[in-house]
């Protein structure tokens, strides 16, 4: 095979645009996830089990469930996200795909963002979609269920984004799982407080606009800062491996 080598190319001759490189990362990650369906179903099953255990373990009274329901769902969603977090970079790290991603000419933080989006689509979004069913199970009324889903829709991407920093930092550490939880859970707490707070306020008939605006601010903050932090953490983790 005759291989032609052209002279070293310069920036102007870049052939692959950033969006298409991001789509390629997204597509590959989704392909891998759908072939490894336990990665999708494990957190989902965990979510359902935790919520289902509360009426059995604490109290099946309608009053209790109506009051605690939103909190239970939010805590379960948070733990389910945490459960899936370690997979975000681990497989890629082990098989060398992460190295190749670091060596792509596109800005790393955008590729990291694409990766985190793929992770949210297979772990966060299913939780949001399943929440109405579980909301009915814990006797939330229609309005509360709507608000709950909205807070989860805004909140779970924040969980994934914050989690991606922790996952990147603990990549090179043996048994990083415990460290990951310790790092990430404190950062999850504000999201949890405002997430459940919104639903509580809605249940009492109070306006929720301000709560939702704050949740939106969390998302904007995480979306703009977390990819940079994750990219920097990935560089450190790979450099020490």
């Amino acid at each position, binding site marked *: 095979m005759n291989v*032609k080598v052209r002279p070293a190319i310069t920036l102007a001759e870049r052939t692959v645009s950033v969006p298409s490189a991001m789509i390629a990362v997204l597509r590959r990650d989704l392909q891998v996830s759908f072939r490894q369906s336990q990665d999708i179903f494990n957190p989902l099953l965990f979510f359902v089990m935790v919520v289902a255990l509360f009426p059995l373990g604490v109290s099946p009274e309608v009053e209790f469930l109506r009051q605690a329901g939103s909190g239970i769902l939010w805590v379960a969603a948070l733990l389910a996200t945490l459960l899936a977090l370690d997979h975000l970079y681990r497989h890629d790290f082990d098989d060398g795909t992460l190295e190749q991603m670091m060596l792509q000419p596109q800005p790393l933080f955008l590729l990291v963002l694409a990766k985190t989006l793929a992770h949210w689509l297979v772990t966060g979004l299913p939780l949001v979609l399943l929440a109405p069913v579980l909301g009915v199970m814990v006797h939330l009324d229609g309005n509360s269920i709507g608000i709950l889903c909205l807070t989860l829709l805004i909140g779970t991407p924040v969980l994934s984004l914050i989690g991606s920093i922790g996952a990147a930092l603990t990549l090179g550490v043996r048994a990083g799982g415990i460290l990951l939880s310790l790092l990430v859970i404190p950062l999850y707490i504000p999201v949890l407080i405002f997430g459940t707070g919104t639903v509580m306020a809605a249940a009492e008939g109070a306006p929720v606009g301000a709560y939702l605006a704050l949740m939106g601010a969390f998302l904007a903050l995480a979306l703009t800062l977390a990819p940079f932090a994750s990219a920097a953490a990935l560089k450190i983790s790979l450099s020490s491996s």
Partner: protein
Amino acid sequence: MCPALMPGSFCRPFGQCPSAERYGALMSEPLLQAVDLHCERDDRLLFQGLDIAIVPGTITRVEGPNGSGKTTLLRILAGLHDGYSGDILWRTQRRARCREEFLRNLLYIGHRPGVKSLLTPLENLRALMAGRQRHPDKNLRAALDGSGLGGFHDVPCQNLSAGQQRRVALARLLISDEPLWILDEAFTAIDFQGVGRLEQLLAQRVVNGGAVVLTTHHPLALSGMQRLQLGQAA
């Protein structure tokens, strides 16, 4: 013989290098230079005062016993490892200043080939090439055929042997246009004929003006190969 590697004496007139005349002004300068490279790992000195110039049209083989820092050196050159002191220049510019251009022109295949076991060879190659060059599937399939994976395009890689998985990564060599290749133990698990074909590919590449840096424990019969010996410090 182009003295691309002269530890300790970095400056040399480029005119002495035959590839300089052959490939014109653009090819006369080194692609990648490392100046006074120093690296320690776990309180052990791997190398110090190392000067390297990677010139187009050369193969550089990094040699040394296990643990002498071959992989670390290659990772430093590829920009994956930060634990070093010294300068790395990409075409006379600090590499940190032209990261994108550097990465666009580098192909690195490491110990871990970057092949996902759940994807098929075609999907893997497509994902590996996606961030670099647009290639129609026809070209990707041709590269897989050329790398000895004809008939395995759509089999999940977990069902393939270790050598076949590595061939998926090596298929990139057949369609890559990057002038600088860094290959870390690229021949691992590749059979005898496969190594022979790779040697031919590398020789062809060098004739065309590409630069290759590699480590391998295979005896390579390539003319004009530079050797860089590590491990004397230990």
